[in-house]
């Protein structure tokens, strides 16, 4: 069983984040951390490997070289190795370009299962796996909160508003997991020590067969024209309930024609 986990290095949300007014891209110069949702995907991959009694957990990411420090945390949790698509030409890649490069890397690796975290905390995107799955021509299941493997098939259970879905697909498949799926482990001291010697392979876009016009800014189909401040909300009233709070709310709703 070979499991690839696609992870992303994101700016620490606890620190101030900003968009570069020049490039209109997220300023990634500060401390990077592993996207919290992806930590759940790494944990799930490790559990599946342990349950299967063997196999390989491979991390795949597209990021500048210094993301190696961030990848080391996932290696310390127990992942076996990392593949880092590191190329200046990849900067500014949107969904079209990113999904293309990731699919090329995954085609090379031929994993049985590809896992994603449900969302990226920097872009709030929740779309990448479905694009990658389409490029790989593989089935996909998203928002999975319970995952199991049996007889060459993956089964995912997810919560919906009024109940739940259980979806099954043959392997290989692409699955996005929600953060309700597990409680990620903390790396052990032994894990932290061994992570230093685990292989981290850096590959260029060319090495993966990504044509220059399909990467980065050139390969992207969306753009950001301008940045601005969010609009201020209108007048806000605050009242203390003196027993007539409910009446006042109704009067307010009536005035706005909401009841």
């Amino acid at each position: 069983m070979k499991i690839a986990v696609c992870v992303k290095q994101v700016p620490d949300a606890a620190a101030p984040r900003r968009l570069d007014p020049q490039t209109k891209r997220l300023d990634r110069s500060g401390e990077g951390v592993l996207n919290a949702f992806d930590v759940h995907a790494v944990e799930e991959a490790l559990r599946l490997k342990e349950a299967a009694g063997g196999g390989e957990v491979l991390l795949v990411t597209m990021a500048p070289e210094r993301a190696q420090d961030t990848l080391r945390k996932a290696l310390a949790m127990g992942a076996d190795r990392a593949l880092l698509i590191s190329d200046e030409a990849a900067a500014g890649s949107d969904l079209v370009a990113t999904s293309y490069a990731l699919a090329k890397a995954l085609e090379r690796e031929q994993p049985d299962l590809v896992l994603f975290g449900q969302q990226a905390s920097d872009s709030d995107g929740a779309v990448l796996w479905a694009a990658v799955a389409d490029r790989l021509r593989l089935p996909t299941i998203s928002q999975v909160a319970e995952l199991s493997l049996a007889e060459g098939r993956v089964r995912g259970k997810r919560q919906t508003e009024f109940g739940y879905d259980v979806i099954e697909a043959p392997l290989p498949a692409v699955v996005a997991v929600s953060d309700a799926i597990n409680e990620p482990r903390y790396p052990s001291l032994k894990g932290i020590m061994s992570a230093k010697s685990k292989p981290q392979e850096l590959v260029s876009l060319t090495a993966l067969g990504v044509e220059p016009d399909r990467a980065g800014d050139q390969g992207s189909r969306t753009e950001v024209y301008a940045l601005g401040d969010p609009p201020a909300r209108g007048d806000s009233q605050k009242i203390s309930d003196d027993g007539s709070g409910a009446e006042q709310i109704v009067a307010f709703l009536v005035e706005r024609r909401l009841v």
Partner: protein
Amino acid sequence: MLSKAAALADGAVAAAILGSGVRDLAARAGSFGARRVFVADDPRLEAPLPQPRVDVLAALVREHGVGTVLFGQSVLAADIAAGLSARLDAGLNWDLTDLRSEDGRLVGRRPALADSVYAEVGWRSEPRLAIVRSGTFEPSETGGEAEVTEVTPQFEDFSLAATMVEQAHEESGGPSIEDADVIVAGGRGLGGPENFTLVEELAKALGGAVGATRAVVDAGWYPYATQVGQTGKTVAPKLYVACGISGAIQHKVGMQSSSVIVAINKDPNAPIFEYSDLGVVGDLHEILPKLTELVRARKSG
């Protein structure tokens, strides 16, 4: 969404209805501004799975030279739009709170970094794909009639590989939180899961849906699927009533685009009051039942 598209495209709008037993919806699409409705009615489109829908939409876009495809935000829509983006190498902008035509080009507005920045975004080529936050646009029923075209879907093998093996759906009278005009949401201030009935009753009286904060979902008081916020759903109803919700950033990003926000909280310093249209400092155990009664009385009277 249709009404907005009709306004943007000067009427040259088609609706695509994909599902099983959905033919009857076609007439409705016409009354909201669609000139043409493509209907793919196929048992293989019954389960809410994205990949067969990507096949149908990709064929429609290619055959009819569709320039822009709009989706209303949902988990299913995001998976479909992303798959379509890869299939057609088409740019996708998501989480839009506005869409307009400016100097002949389409411009979307996307809040970023926990809604602290608004980015004006666009597309470099056609087709353009966009996912719009639910509740962003007002429907306008113009009463037109659409020409209905039946589509025979052709599916890729891999698109039919994932199958729905079980679907548990508790019947609920109210709308889903993604479609609701009114959402009444509860947070930790309710004090316990049993008090969610106060929220449910008010939601029912207002004809709305129930939402929950991350804290109460994590505590197991209410299902994850109703979670509003950064790690849950982003909603923009006409009215959002926040009950016992402090309004931390994680929740704020999921609901601050609501047209009107009413907050009830006993802590006068709760951050939610900073972005509420009406804030009531008080005990929701007293206010909510009374409010529900008053709303009911008004609706029945």
